[in-house]
C-alpha cells in the first residue's frame, strides 16, 4: 500500500489529472477488450469487411438453372429451339425457374406455358419497342385463341409467311397508314426477297438510292396524278437526298 502511495505522490502531475487518468485508462482498456472480443473473426482478412459474408452470399441457392441444364433431358425441344427465332429465349423465361424440377423432376413439374400473356408480354405492340421486333395487337389478333394454337413456341415461325409487313414493322405500318403515302405498298419502295419473311437478317430489303426515285412521282415532269405535290428537282433541296428532310413513311411531318 505504501509503495502505491509513494508512486502516486511521485508522479509529476497534479492530483486531479492522476485520478482522471485512471478513469480514462479504465475506459480505453475496456474498449480494447470489448473490441477484441466483438470484431468478427474474418473481418479484415481480404479487405475492410467480413470475409465470411462473401462465402455466405456465394453459397446462396439458385432458382434458374440455365438452358444448358434443360436440354440435357429435353433434347428434342432443345434441338428445335436452337434453330428457331426463340434460340435466345431461355427455357425458364416461359416455364419458370427450374431448380426444384432439376432436383426432383417428377415431384416438381414446371409451367406448361400456354397462356397468351406469356407471349404478349413480349409481343404486344408498344411504340417503344425496337423496329423489326415482331409485335401484334392482342385485342385484334385472334383474341379468343391461345397463341400456341397456331404458333409452336419452340419454333415460332408464323403459320403462313406474313401477308403484310406490318406484322413485324408495326410502328412503321401505323405511321404510314395515316400518312399521304398510305396507299403505297411497302414493296413500292423496298425490294423484298421472299427469304426476308423467313429469315429477316439474311435478306435485308432494299431502299431507294437517289432523288430520281422520288422524282418518279414528285418531279415537274412526272407522269403521275395531278394531286401529287410537285417540286423542281433541279432547284429544290440544294442537292440533298429527299429523305434527309422528308420522312417517307410520314412525308407531311415536319
Amino acid at each position, binding site marked *: 500500500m505504501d509503495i502505491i502511495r509513494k508512486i502516486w505522490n511521485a508522479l509529476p502531475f497534479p*492530483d*486531479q489529472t492522476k485520478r482522471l487518468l485512471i478513469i480514462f485508462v479504465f475506459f480505453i482498456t475496456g474498449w480494447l477488450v*470489448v473490441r477484441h472480443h466483438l470484431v468478427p473473426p474474418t*473481418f479484415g482478412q481480404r479487405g475492410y469487411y467480413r470475409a465470411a459474408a462473401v462465402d455466405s452470399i456465394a453459397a446462396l441457392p439458385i432458382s434458374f438453372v440455365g438452358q444448358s441444364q434443360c436440354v440435357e433431358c429435353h433434347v428434342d425441344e432443345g434441338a428445335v429451339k436452337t434453330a428457331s427465332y426463340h434460340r435466345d429465349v431461355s427455357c425458364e423465361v416461359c416455364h419458370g425457374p427450374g431448380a426444384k424440377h432439376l432436383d426432383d423432376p417428377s415431384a416438381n413439374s414446371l409451367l406448361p406455358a400456354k397462356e397468351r400473356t406469356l407471349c404478349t408480354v413480349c409481343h404486344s405492340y408498344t411504340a417503344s419497342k425496337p423496329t423489326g421486333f415482331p409485335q401484334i395487337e392482342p385485342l385484334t389478333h385472334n383474341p379468343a385463341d391461345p397463341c400456341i394454337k397456331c404458333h409452336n413456341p419452340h419454333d415460332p415461325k408464323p403459320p403462313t409467311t406474313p401477308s403484310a409487313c406490318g406484322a413485324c414493322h408495326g410502328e412503321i405500318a401505323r405511321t404510314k397508314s395515316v400518312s399521304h403515302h398510305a396507299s403505297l405498298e411497302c414493296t413500292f419502295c423496298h425490294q423484298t426477297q421472299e427469304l426476308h419473311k423467313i429469315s429477316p437478317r439474311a435478306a435485308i430489303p432494299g431502299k431507294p438510292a437517289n432523288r430520281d426515285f422520288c422524282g418518279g412521282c414528285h418531279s415537274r415532269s412526272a407522269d403521275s396524278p395531278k394531286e401529287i405535290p410537285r417540286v423542281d428537282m433541279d432547284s429544290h433541296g440544294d442537292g440533298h437526298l429527299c429523305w434527309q428532310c422528308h420522312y417517307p413513311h410520314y412525308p407531311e411531318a415536319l
Partner: protein
Amino acid sequence: MDKLIEQLQHNLSQVVGFIYPNEIELHWGILVVVYPYITGLVAGAFILASLERVFNVKEIMPTYRLALLTALSFLIVAPLPLLLHLGHPERSFEIMITPHLQSAMAMFGFVYIWYLMMVLVLEIWFEYREDLGRWARSGKGWKKYLHYLLTLGSLDHSEKSLRFDHKAVTFITIVGIPSAFLLHGYVGFIFGSIKANPWWSSVLMPIVFLFSAIVSGIALMILVYGLSTLIRGKSIDMACMNKLASYLLYVLIIDLSLETLDFIHRVYESVESINIMGQLISQKLFISLIVVQLLLGTLAPISLLVLSKFLRLPDELKRLLFFLSAILVQIGIFSTRWNVVIGGQLFSKSLRGLTNYKMELLGLEGLLIAIGLLVLPFIILTVMVKILPPWKDQKPAVS
C-alpha cells in the same frame, strides 16, 4: 410490413414526374431531422459558454455554467434519434469497433466520445471540482455521497490546485471551440459530402450548419437562462440578456448571408439540377423554407432584435421581444434542418420528379417520439441542475 406497403402505396400516388422505383421509400425521417437540430444546440450552447472563458465577455457570466450543463444534457440525447432510426440498433456498437475510416458517418463515435468525454465532461468537472468538494464535506443525505463520488476523491483545495483547475478549464475551452466546430461541421459534412444529391452536395454545408448551430444555441440559452431565472424568482440580468441578444443578431446576419450566398451561387451557376430544385422549393418546401425558415425564423427575429436594439424600450418589453425572437429562431432552425434532411429526399436523383414524405404520428420514427426526444434534454437538465447547481448567486440547497 403491411403498414409500410400501405404507406408506400400512398406515397406512390403523390409522386410528380418520374422517380426511380426504389426511391418511393423516404429513408431519413423526422428523427434524422431531430439529430442535427440537437447537435446544433449542443455546439451553439458550448460556443456561447466559451465566449466567457476565452474572450472574457463578463456580461454573459451568468449563463456560463448553465450553458455547459445544457450542452451536456442535449449531447446525452443526441445519439438517441440515430439509434432509434437504425434498422438494427443492436448492431450499433459496430461503429465503435470496426469504424470504416473513409466514411464520414463512422467518425460519429469518435467525434461524439471526444466531445462528450474530453471536452464537456472534463470542463464541467474541473469547473465544479471545488464546489463538489465543498458540497461533499458540508452536505447531507445521499447528495453528500453523490458529490463525493463525483469528486473522484480529489479534495485538494489548495490555491495551487485550484489555479490548475482554472487553467485546465481555459485550456479545455480553447480545445473545445474547434471541437464544437468539428462536432457540428461534421454533421454538415455528412450531408455536404453526398455527391449523388445536388441539394446536399455543397462545401458551404458544414459552415452553414455551424452558424445555424450557433444561432440556435444562443437562442436556446436566452430561453433557458430567462425561464430558469423566472422560475427561481430571481431578477433577470439585463446586461447579460442584451449581450446575448446582440450576439444572436450578429450570428443570425452571418447565417442569413451564408444561406443567401449558397442560394445565389446555385441560381447563378444554374447547373442541371436547378429545374428540379426550383420545383422542390416552389412546390414541396414553400411553407417550410420560404415562410417558416426565411420569413418567420430569420427575417422576423432579425427585425425584432434590430428594433429592440435601436429603440429605447422598457426592459420588460425588451425581454418579451428577446423571448419571442428566440422562440422564432428555434422554429426557424428546426425548419432549416427539416429542409435539408427531408427536402434532400423529396426529389428523385433522376432529377425528373418529386416524391412525398408522410410523417407518422405514433411508431418508432413518428412525431411523438421526436417530441419526446426534444423534451428529454430538459428533463435531464432539470436533474443536472439539482445535482450541480450552476447559480453563483445561491448556495446549493443542502448547505
